[in-house]
């Protein structure tokens, strides 16, 4: 194995696609735009596959002898004093898995988008943004130092902002993009502080060097390390939509559905998990920070799952589900089971991308309808979508032998075996699993089973809010799409592939996956559960999944209407959940409004109007006052000019005489005698 993997091409191919479609896209024929847009991620995916195969096929003792493989660009990026930062790419087991997910799922979603966005006037712009996202995401994953990772980190935030606000003429989409950007900025600020602290502590930002320094100094623990870890965690909560910064993700559903699938479910939002796994050597040194990670994850998982119970917008249910599943991954990281977290990240990328794409197919087939109360009975109309969605629903609920069964189980087991508070985390995770199973089957029943509840009347009757949210293009389409119809094969193909992956994605098994990742993220040191205990835990997990299915079945299939009765009888908690715990309102009142008020008072009135405006007025006033005074001199009266001239000449004369010989005036008059 020599240094010829050409990792740098992996991000640069999508970047080339971005440039071509971004600059020329509007003038190129659509087929060419599509070709460029699809070739870029395909090329990246192929390169990743080549890298995977060649690292696997070479080396006497398996991949760990050649990985991590570091590729450094000859010229340094930043060179200031002792600080040297290079463009460097690191390929190890962790980034390999992540790259496969990003480029693989990314490529499938590109294909899906060809069908989904086919009528959109912003077709080329859409694909250029999507390629831009892949560029930044692969940069983030491959980065060999924290700063380069931060560039990718900010870049995916930019791509996310551009794509959420893709239909920028719609106010809600534009403001959702703004919200995502601003909330992410808060997290990024924490990340940035973490980078500064890292630099101050270690003098380098390269992952390998930091890890080496930590290894060389086993006493370095807590204190500054905890501070760094917590700052990084703040960054991760912003990007991965964890408490308290999760609020942007549900609103991000304003973007096109494939974007929700790629960026806001499968890849970008998992960047926080990836970052924690990548810097696990820092978190490992701070048990306190790890506990905070686990608490944040568990709390988010439960919190978001409860909100997901009552949402009626199909994409919002999935959005809260994403937040909740990301909480699982954080929980996994928090109990130092990084490989389990990455395992869940991978399976989640499969089934959640599938769920979103299937939901997009449903929305597409219904002409823009996103309200589940007006769906139902779609099983007959959209068989492929139904079956793929079914695979995803059973996968996320955690039924064996589907993907999430293995990964969720791995996290729950790791949590159970974790020392302090592990049982609590495990219990929260189990309750979340029950809720997850319930709301996913609720979605499944409401969408595909029973009779179709929507129709033209319902659409008009309740349509205003939904219409405002629905994709503009699809609303136009609604006028001629009366009957639900199945989507084209460019959309169904990715669904089928992802469905297969959702089924078999977990078969590698958490143990083998963990062993594979061990060189990157370290093997778990916690004692393994006895097999009896392990089977009990697994059985319990399956049991709660089945229980969730059973409750959903009772409420939405066998006894329809019971859900409404329950909502009526528990209107307090129901309203609380329906309004998402009033968190948006709370943030609005506690943070946004005060900041606006302070800005308005301090910045607008005090700084802008009083200080800046006042200074301008003062200068202008002084000038015109001076003018008014000096104006009197320029009377236009020749005599007054002459008088001033004479007076001034006399003054100068007297002054000069006085200065050079104070006695001269006296001499002039008293000493007249002369020669």
């Amino acid at each position, binding site marked *: 194995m020599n240094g010829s993997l050409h990792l740098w091409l992996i991000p640069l191919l999508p970047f080339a696609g971005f440039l071509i479609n971004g600059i020329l896209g509007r003038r190129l024929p659509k087929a060419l735009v599509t070709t460029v847009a699809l070739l870029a991620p395909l090329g990246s995916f192929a390169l990743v596959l080549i890298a995977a195969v060649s690292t696997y096929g070479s080396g006497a003792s398996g991949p760990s002898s050649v990985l991590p493989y570091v590729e450094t660009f000859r010229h340094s990026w930043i060179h200031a004093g002792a600080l040297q930062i290079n463009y460097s790419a690191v390929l190890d087991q962790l980034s390999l898995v992540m790259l496969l997910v990003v480029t693989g799922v990314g490529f499938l979603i590109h294909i899906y988008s060809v069908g989904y966005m086919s009528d959109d006037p912003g077709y080329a712009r859409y694909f250029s943004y999507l390629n831009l996202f892949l560029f930044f995401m692969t940069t983030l994953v491959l980065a060999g130092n924290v700063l380069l990772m931060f560039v990718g980190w900010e870049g995916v935030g930019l791509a996310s902002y551009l794509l959420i606000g893709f239909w920028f003429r719609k106010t809600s989409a534009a403001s959702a993009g703004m919200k995502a950007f601003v909330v992410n900025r808060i997290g990024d600020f924490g990340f940035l502080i973490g980078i500064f602290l890292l630099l101050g502590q270690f003098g380098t930002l390269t992952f390998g060097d930091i890890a080496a320094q930590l290894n060389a100094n086993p006493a370095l623990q807590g204190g500054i390390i905890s501070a760094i870890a917590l700052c990084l965690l703040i960054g991760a909560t912003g990007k991965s939509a964890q408490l308290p910064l999760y609020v942007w993700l549900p609103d991000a559903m304003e973007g096109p559905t494939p974007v929700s699938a790629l960026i806001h479910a499968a890849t970008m939002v998992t960047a926080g998990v990836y970052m924690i796994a990548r810097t696990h050597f820092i978190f490992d040194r701070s048990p306190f920070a790890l506990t905070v990670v686990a608490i944040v994850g568990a709390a988010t998982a439960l919190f978001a799952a409860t909100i997901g119970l009552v949402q009626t917008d199909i994409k919002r249910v999935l959005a809260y589900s994403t937040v909740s599943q990301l909480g699982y991954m954080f929980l996994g990281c928090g109990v130092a089971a990084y490989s389990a977290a990455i395992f869940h990240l991978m399976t989640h990328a499969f089934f959640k991308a599938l769920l979103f794409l299937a939901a997009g197919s449903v929305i597409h087939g219904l002409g823009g309808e996103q309200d589940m109360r007006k769906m139902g009975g779609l099983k007959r109309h959209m068989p492929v979508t139904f079956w793929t969605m079914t695979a995803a629903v059973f996968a996320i609920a955690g039924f064996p032998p589907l993907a999430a069964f293995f990964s969720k189980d791995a996290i729950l087991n790791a949590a159970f075996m974790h020392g302090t508070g592990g049982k609590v985390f495990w219990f929260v995770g189990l309750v979340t699993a029950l809720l997850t199973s319930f709301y996913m089957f609720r979605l499944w029943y409401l969408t595909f089973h029973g009779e179709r509840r929507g129709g033209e009347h319902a659409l008009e009757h309740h349509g205003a809010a939904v219409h405002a949210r629905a994709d503009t293009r699809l609303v136009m389409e609604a006028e001629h799409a009366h009957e639900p119809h199945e989507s084209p094969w460019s959309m169904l193909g990715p669904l089928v592939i992802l469905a297969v992956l959702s089924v078999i994605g977990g078969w590698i098994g958490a143990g083998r996956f963990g062993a594979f990742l061990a060189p990157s993220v370290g093997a778990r040191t916690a004692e393994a559960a006895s097999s009896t205990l392990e089977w009990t835990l697994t059985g319990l997990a399956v049991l709660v999944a089945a229980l969730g299915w059973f409750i959903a079945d009772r409420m939405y299939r066998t006894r329809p209407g019971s859900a409404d009765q329950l909502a009526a009888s528990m209107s307090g908690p129901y309203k609380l959940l329906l309004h998402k715990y009033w968190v948006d309102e709370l943030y609005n009142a506690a943070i946004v409004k005060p900041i606006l008020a302070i800005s308005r008072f301090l910045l607008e009135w005090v700084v802008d109007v009083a200080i800046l405006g006042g200074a301008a007025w003062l200068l202008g006033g002084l000038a015109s006052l001076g003018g008014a005074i000096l104006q009197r001199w*320029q009377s*236009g*009266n*020749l*005599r007054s000019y*002459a*008088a001033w001239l*004479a007076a001034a000449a006399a003054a100068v004369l007297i002054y000069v005489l006085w200065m050079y010989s104070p006695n001269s005036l006296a001499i*002039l*008059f008293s*000493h*007249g*005698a*002369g*020669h």
Partner: protein
Amino acid sequence: MIPISWYLLLSAALFCLGVVGFLIKRNLITVFMSIELMLNGVNLSFVAFAHQWHLVKGQIFVFFVMVVAAAEAAVGLAIIIAVFRARSTLAVDRIDLMKL
């Protein structure tokens, strides 16, 4: 011998008369004559100093001043005549066409 200070006092008196005349007189010709008076006051001090220090430069300078004064008189009188033809007056306060 008359001391130089007498010459200088006379010179200053002539100059001041010229200044005052320039400032208070209304008739353009009188103003013009006041200017000549100032010039000659200065000339007198030049000559006095030249005599005092036995230097010829002061006297040469006086010739220059007289040449300039002659040229000024020629141009000035021509302007005065032109002004009188145009405005039928020589009062300086009335000749204010350029005033804002």
